[in-house]
């Protein structure tokens, strides 16, 4: 495989803390690659090493054929980054933020001006060109950051939790834009703790937990392998769930009792629901759904993604 990124035994240590614990992965050109995991799984540390803004502690990492430690500035000139925090200049206009950023890449002003017009059209903010950042909504700010990350026409676009903290509507607008980028052949690296985001945007992903990669594959392949079929979710009034452990475990070969609900993995949700009813359980709500990456994560780590 012609890899844009290749990591072998990649490790990040902060004093005694091992944030990334010897992970291996490769990303091909044009691919949309995701890192799924809860907070503290090591996703952001991995992104920063790829983006040449955090030194590699151990192992090998090659990005666009360059060594992030040795070729930092050259590598960064070819990357686009959407960091977890927007870090825009709130008091400046959208245009000035983008112009300023383009200048960091030593681009000519006229070239940046053309690029700004193009990008604002792409992120649907043309009419906000002269608005101050502080006057924009969270979703709009995020779109400005995406435009900023694309100003230098990067060969690789790195997004660290692109939609965390946004309302559902704003998230869908962003997903739509990112999906277009993907279709244009831009190589995307995305970290997320939202399973739906990973399912929407990633061709392939790794599931991370405690600095390690615990599974790898396409979203569908991962679901097929670790959580096939359907899920029945049962909710009970507060305080009752703990007393029902054994009864729930009898319902199916795989069940999970969480703090607020019980999950029953099954091939046939309808049959399971009738089994629930005939067993005498009286859940407050019953929900049947298809399995998601959330279930994969739960299966692999025994914990939920968003806690």
């Amino acid at each position: 495989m012609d890899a844009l990124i290749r990591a072998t035994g990649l490790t990040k240590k902060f004093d005694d803390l091992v944030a990334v614990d010897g992970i291996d992965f490769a990303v091909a050109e044009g691919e949309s690659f995701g890192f799924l995991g809860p907070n503290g799984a090591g996703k952001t540390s991995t992104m920063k090493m790829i983006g040449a803004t955090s030194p590699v502690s151990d192992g090998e990492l090659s990005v666009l054929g360059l060594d992030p430690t040795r070729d930092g500035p050259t590598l960064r000139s070819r990357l686009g980054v959407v960091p977890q925090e927007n870090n825009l200049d709130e008091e400046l206009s959208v245009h000035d933020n983008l112009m300023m950023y383009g200048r960091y890449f030593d681009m000519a002003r006229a070239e940046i001006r053309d690029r700004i017009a193009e990008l604002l059209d792409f992120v649907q903010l043309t009419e906000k060109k002269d608005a101050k950042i502080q006057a924009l909504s969270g979703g709009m700010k995020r779109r400005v950051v995406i435009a900023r990350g694309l100003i230098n026409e990067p060969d690789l676009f790195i997004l660290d939790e692109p939609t965390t903290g946004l309302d559902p509507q704003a998230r869908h607008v962003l997903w739509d834009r990112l999906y277009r980028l993907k279709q244009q052949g831009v190589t995307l690296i995305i970290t997320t703790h939202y399973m739906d985001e990973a399912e929407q945007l990633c061709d392939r992903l790794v599931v991370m937990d405690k600095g390690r990669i615990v599974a790898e594959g396409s979203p569908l392949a991962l679901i097929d392998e670790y959580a096939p079929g359907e899920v029945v979710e049962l909710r009970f009034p507060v305080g009752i769930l703990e007393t029902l452990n054994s009864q729930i475990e009898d319902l199916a070969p795989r069940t999970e009792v969480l703090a607020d609900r019980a999950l029953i993995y099954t091939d046939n949700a309808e049959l399971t629901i009738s089994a629930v009813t005939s067993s005498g359980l009286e859940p407050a709500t019953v929900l049947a759904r298809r399995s998601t990456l959330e279930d994969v994560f739960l299966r692999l780590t025994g914990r939920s993604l968003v806690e």
Partner: protein
Amino acid sequence: MVTPLSLRVFEAEARVYRRTWRGSVVSSFLNPVLYMFAMGVGLGSLVDANIPGGVEGVPYLTFLAPGILVATAMNTGASEGAWKVMGGVVWAKTWHARLASPIGIEGLVLGHIFWSAARVFMVSVIFAAVIAAFRVAPLFESLLAVGPAVLVGAAMVSATTAFTVRLKEISGLPMFFRFVVLPMFLFSGAFFPISQLPNWLQPVALITPVYHGVELARAIVIGTSPAVAWWVSVLYLAAWIVGFGVLCVKPLRKKLTP
């Protein structure tokens, strides 16, 4: 790579400044006007009435003007070093954004010091013009005194930045201004000759950048001969700029690219 990209940092700061320059120019103008009135009309006439022949042979206001020109430059440098760094590193985190571009830590520090020195230059030129307008000193000499003022300002930018990037708690900054910047402002020879200080305190004043800048500015404006050779003072201030500038790099690297 470092030098041209540090110019981009300078340019970015100028773009930010363009938004607030009016207010900044007004206060840069009002500040020396207030000093000239308060010190000249108020304190100055009192001092001059009691010291025949003036301070170091000149009226108090003439003695004072080059002093507060330099001390104000020091204040400006300290503010730029403190608040700009807090904004970039802790509050708005715009410095993090810069580092995702080809700009490296060295370019960032260099551009920051360079821009802050430019801010000190602007403030000092306006100050010098006010001094001349009050006929305290001729315009040409006043403008020449901007040179040492900028050196002192830049020295304080470097030193304050090196301090700020090492802070764990922001509460360290008000302490820094209260116990380092303010005493330096008051006791480094700007308001009175350091010979007035108790003997044990004089060597302390001697190591401050303000003292050297004030001596240089006074030599230019009123022709006094400094106790320290002028080139020693210039080299000393340059050493502050470079030395503390270098000391900014490592903690910033640790903070911004852990």
